[in-house]
């Protein structure tokens, strides 16, 4: 295997990435004592790097608490990153002031997980969708109504719904409104923070299809954060697997599913049911124990406490994310 640094150009070398995340860290201080001294950090995101190219969907998966949502929220600066760069179209968002950030937010949107808490209960759908347009002065006030009607049509809701309040809608419909809200500013990148996890299985496919169609129609780029491998596999071109604040493996979707190299990815896949018995992975990996605390992560490879193939090197040395198309952070990658 050719070992290359991840920083070397990926195969899509002709294309410039839309978003480059470099060594992103998001720590939350733990305060204790009389004077509220900081005695440690919860390392929610601990040095994450990846690129997203225009028009693609990068899936980000991992157990709850692995830092995938925090990564997504840090990228749209709902968190202030502790360290690292978020380079969007050549500009580092991590250094942006609030005012600079405000101007670029039209290009950068987010869809939330819970459609019940992501819509302001006191606002009609029409107001919810026209406010961003009016605030950023993107269209003339006289055209706002039409634009709102259009966007509702696009996400598959009748324009007459604009007079209603969020509580009059089902979860799936609310999520469509959430998508419309993210879409109305005509963004380039949308962070989808587990957009289907809170929905019924029957609705999930509808929303995923909507996202796929919208991506084609408007040439959108997605960072799709997911819990369930099914949804992520369905929508993503590439997948990054996170464990305890780090990316452990990243590669094309088929690569990850057919030829995963990291024991943790294998374990995740083993837990994912495959309908066709011929395609089932023969060597199932079942991991034991709970995810360690991100405030006091294990030394060396963070996965070593639960890895069935653990060796002494794993406890001491931190593995780097290596490989060009398909990178893996493991001292002893599987084959």
């Amino acid at each position: 295997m050719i070992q290359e640094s991840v920083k070397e150009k990926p195969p899509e070398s002709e294309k410039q990435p839309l978003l480059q995340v470099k060594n992103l860290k998001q720590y939350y201080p733990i305060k204790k004592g009389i004077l509220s001294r900081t005695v440690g950090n919860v390392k929610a995101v601990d040095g994450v790097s990846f690129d997203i190219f225009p028009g693609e969907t990068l899936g980000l998966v991992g157990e709850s608490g692995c830092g995938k949502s925090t990564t997504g929220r840090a990228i749209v600066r709902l968190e202030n990153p502790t360290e690292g760069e978020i380079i969007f179209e050549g500009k580092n968002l991590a250094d942006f002031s609030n005012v600079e950030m405000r101007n670029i937010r039209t290009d950068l949107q987010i869809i939330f997980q819970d459609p019940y808490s992501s819509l302001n209960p006191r606002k009609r759908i029409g107001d919810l969708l026209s406010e961003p347009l009016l605030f950023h002065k993107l269209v003339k006030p006289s055209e706002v109504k039409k634009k709102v009607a259009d966007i509702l049509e696009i996400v598959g809701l009748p324009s007459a719904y604009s007079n209603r309040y969020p509580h009059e809608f089902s979860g799936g419909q609310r999520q469509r409104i959430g998508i419309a809200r993210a879409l109305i500013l005509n963004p380039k990148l949308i962070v989808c923070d587990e957009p289907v996890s809170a929905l019924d299985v029957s609705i999930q496919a509808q929303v995923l299809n909507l996202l796929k169609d919208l991506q084609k129609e408007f040439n959108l780029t997605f960072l799709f954060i997911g819990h369930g491998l099914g949804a992520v596999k369905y929508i993503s071109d590439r997948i990054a697997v996170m464990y305890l604040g780090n990316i452990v493996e990243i590669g094309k979707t088929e690569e990850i599913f057919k030829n995963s190299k990291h024991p943790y990815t294998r374990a995740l896949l083993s837990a994912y049911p495959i309908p066709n018995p011929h395609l089932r992975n023969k060597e199932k990996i079942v991991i034991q124990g709970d995810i360690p605390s991100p405030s006091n992560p294990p030394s060396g490879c963070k996965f070593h406490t639960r890895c069935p193939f653990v060796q002494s090197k794993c406890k001491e040395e931190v593995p780097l994310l290596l490989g060009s198309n398909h990178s893996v952070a493991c001292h002893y990658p599987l084959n």
Partner: protein
Amino acid sequence: MSSPNLNLDKHNQVISSNLLIQADVLGQEESYMKVIVTRFLKHKLAVVGLVTFILIVLMALFAPIIAPHDPYEIGYEFEAKPSMEHPLGTDQIGRDVLSRLIYASRISLAVGIGAVTIYVIIGTILGAIAGYMGKWADMIIMRITDVFMSFPFLMVILVLVSVMGPNLFNIILVLGFLGWPPVARLVRGSVLSLKEMDYIKAGVALGYTAPRILVHHILPNALAPILVNATFGIAFAIITEASLSFLGMGVQPPTASWGNMLTEAQSLTVLAQQPWLWIPPGLFIILAVISINFMGDGLRDAVDPKSFK
């Protein structure tokens, strides 16, 4: 995996929208306000309170029409017992007690509404800043709140009003500038929990400015507890004004206030021999205060999120 056709998806939507349209026909489209009004109206004592309060407001508004005499006119018999001409008699210097009682409602309402308006505005602004900005702003505002809340309310008001000069305007100001700490704490708490909601985060992601998020997105959702607090606050302000005026540190004669109409009853002769002078204003204070408190209680139940389905 083949993707299901989007048309199918739209078909589903049509079905569900039909269902919703039906629901509309059945009159189930309820806004938040409607729900609250309906629930408030189910609270019997609250409705009684509301009606009483409206009557008191009408009495204050139409005092010149309702009152049988001029409340300042000194031209009748002194200390007259109740009669047809003076249903509640006359006071020590011969003014019609009933007319003064009616006019005094204006003072109570002015103090209640004026003071509460001032302190709700101050408390909301400070609480919102403390909750939204956090860090040192929160620290400073909350410590100031602690200082204000450390003084026993009536005590410090007495002192302040007496040094500023006891009159209606100063009472409103003092009550307004001292009453804000509980509102500030309340608003701070709501803002702290609301700002973590995804719909507020969505506002941040949409690039809205902090003042816009606070005013247009957070505060409308924090309004209910403020409103409840303000209702009880009006009652409390009315009682406080009456107490101050009773002690001679409030509204000064000849202006009539329910509180200062009772001042004379500190003398045992008035207390023992002219109950018509002091019992009616006392009852009016109780009526006003309790009707507002019942309203507040009904409102509290009506907006309580725990009892929403």
